[in-house]
């Protein structure tokens, strides 16, 4: 359980996060979503006490992180895949981390195996690819068998197999009752991994709700209709808040009406329908709709 209360952090004149209050609950994967520069990493660093909030506070399991007798048992954090000395081997890095808490050597080799690093464990980290660095970061986070996991962009640089592995790992960890707090800029990844989402834009919380709710709230549902009588149907359906897009002959994309209503209307008028499909909005669309006003570095639309 992570509890943030009115967290504010400024770097000079720039406010990184403003008045954040949220809870990350155990037993589920909580996604932390937001455009670049929204303040996700800053927030995560404040949770483990690397950055000090200007005002507000954050606790893990009821206490500030630094007050725990065995911090690595409480929280495992992957904040930056490069938080490792490049001149040291992966194994020595993990042994040094483990030694602070008197964690057994056996556990070090367990996490090396768990993250698939056996063949490179005795190599110096400087030569690691981004993906291997991520695996080492995850191994370090798992070292203390923590009840809370904080992972900042864990799939960054991983190959598809690695992405799948991380997804299964975090689902499994949440299934064991642990608290998993995961940031990612890959919205599609979040849709498949997270149960709950906290969406951040320009340092403030835009949304804090279960994934389905955010998707539902973020976009209006679209219905795809294929019919030989497309033109007639379109005339019948026309109404002030109904948007109909005819992308090709015989195909309508309708926003603002339920699939059932469209089907009933077509039946009542004796018009044949070949396809009637509600289109599920993607999290990507929901996210873009949510953060449209809160993007710090906007890319100009390609014309």
């Amino acid at each position, binding site marked *: 359980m992570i509890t943030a209360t009115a967290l504010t952090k400024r770097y000079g004149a720039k406010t990184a996060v403003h008045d954040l209050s949220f809870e990350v609950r155990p037993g589920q994967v909580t996604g932390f979503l937001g455009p670049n520069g929204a303040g996700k990493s800053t927030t995560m660093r404040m949770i483990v*006490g690397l950055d000090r909030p200007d005002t507000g506070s954050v606790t893990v399991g009821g206490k500030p992180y630094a007050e725990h007798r065995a911090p690595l048992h409480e929280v495992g954090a992957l904040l930056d895949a*490069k938080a490792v000395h490049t*001149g040291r081997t992966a194994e020595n890095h993990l042994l040094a981390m483990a030694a602070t808490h008197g964690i057994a050597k056996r556990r070090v080799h367990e996490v090396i195996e768990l993250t698939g690093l056996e063949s490179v464990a005795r190599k110096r980290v400087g030569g690691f690819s981004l993906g291997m660095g991520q695996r080492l970061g995850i191994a370090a986070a798992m070292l203390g068998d923590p009840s809370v996991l904080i992972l900042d962009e864990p799939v960054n640089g991983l190959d598809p197999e690695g992405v799948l592995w991380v997804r299964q790992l975090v689902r499994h960890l949440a299934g064991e009752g642990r608290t998993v707090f995961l940031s990612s800029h890959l919205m599609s990844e979040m849709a498949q991994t997270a149960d709950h989402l906290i969406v951040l834009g320009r340092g403030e919380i835009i949304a804090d709700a279960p994934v389905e709710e955010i998707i539902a709230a973020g976009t209006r549902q679209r219905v795809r209709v294929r019919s030989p009588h497309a033109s007639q149907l379109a005339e019948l359906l026309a109404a002030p808040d109904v948007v109909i897009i005819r992308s090709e002959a015989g195909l309508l994309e309708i926003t603002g009406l339920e699939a059932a209503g469209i089907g009933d209307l077509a039946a009542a008028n004796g018009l044949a329908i070949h396809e009637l499909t509600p289109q599920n909005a993607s999290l990507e669309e929901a996210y873009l709709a949510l953060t449209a006003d809160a993007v710090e570095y906007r890319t100009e639309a390609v014309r």
Partner: protein
Amino acid sequence: MTTATTAARPVQGGPRLPHTARLSFGGILRSEWIKLRSLRSTVWSYLIVVAISLGMAVLMSFSLANGMSGMDVSAAPPAEQTGMVLQSAVFGTYFGQLVVAVLGVLIISGEYTTGMIRSTLSAVPKRLPALAGKAVVLFVATLVVGVVTNLAAFGVAAAIFAGSGVHVSLFAENVLLVLGGAALYLALVSVFALGIGTIIRSSAGGIAAVLGILLLLPTVLGLIPAEWASDLMPYLLSSAGMTMFMTIGADPATLPGPNAWQSLLVVLAWLAVSLAGAAVLLKRRDA
């Protein structure tokens, strides 16, 4: 890309461990010891200290023993003979201090430049025990290397002087004190540099700062033709450091400034300022 490492693992968090392990200062010391010995730069630095000390001892011994000053060294009074052998044995400390100073800076600045500091401070979120752990491990390691090196250098020097008919025992008065004092100075300089490295957080800046304090400051002060400048000289880190072991057993009347023990206190004062600044900034700053 190493394909061998991408084999998917059965998904598991590993067995839940019995949570008996605790963060402890003993654990932090072990951790810092693993960190110290698992970097090539550390091993190289210490090897260079050993090589320089032995090399300088050989050079110095030959030039002194072969009557550089035109005198017959075997005819010199015993105290002077001991002095010459000792001077040869610890001569390398002048250069060794620069090497251990660089090492002291790198121990912490290397963590800042690579990002390792975030791992270190996540494991030790109260922060000061991490700095203390580094200081203790660095101090002890440098002291041990210094003692062993100085004993070896003394052995080399004594052997060379023996060829010229000068025989000095390791157990002669003050010999062990001087050799140990020189090693202690090396250890203290390395910890001083650790403090500076923590304050400055960059390798280049930290190294420039400690070398500036050790080398440049005495030179600059020497160029100032004022009495206060020459009065200040014995209180500089490197001057006090040399005095604290080179003048052990010397007649106080022959010393212009503080004696060996007072100079040790001066060195400790430099250390205290550096470490206090490091502690305050480490605790206060974002990592």
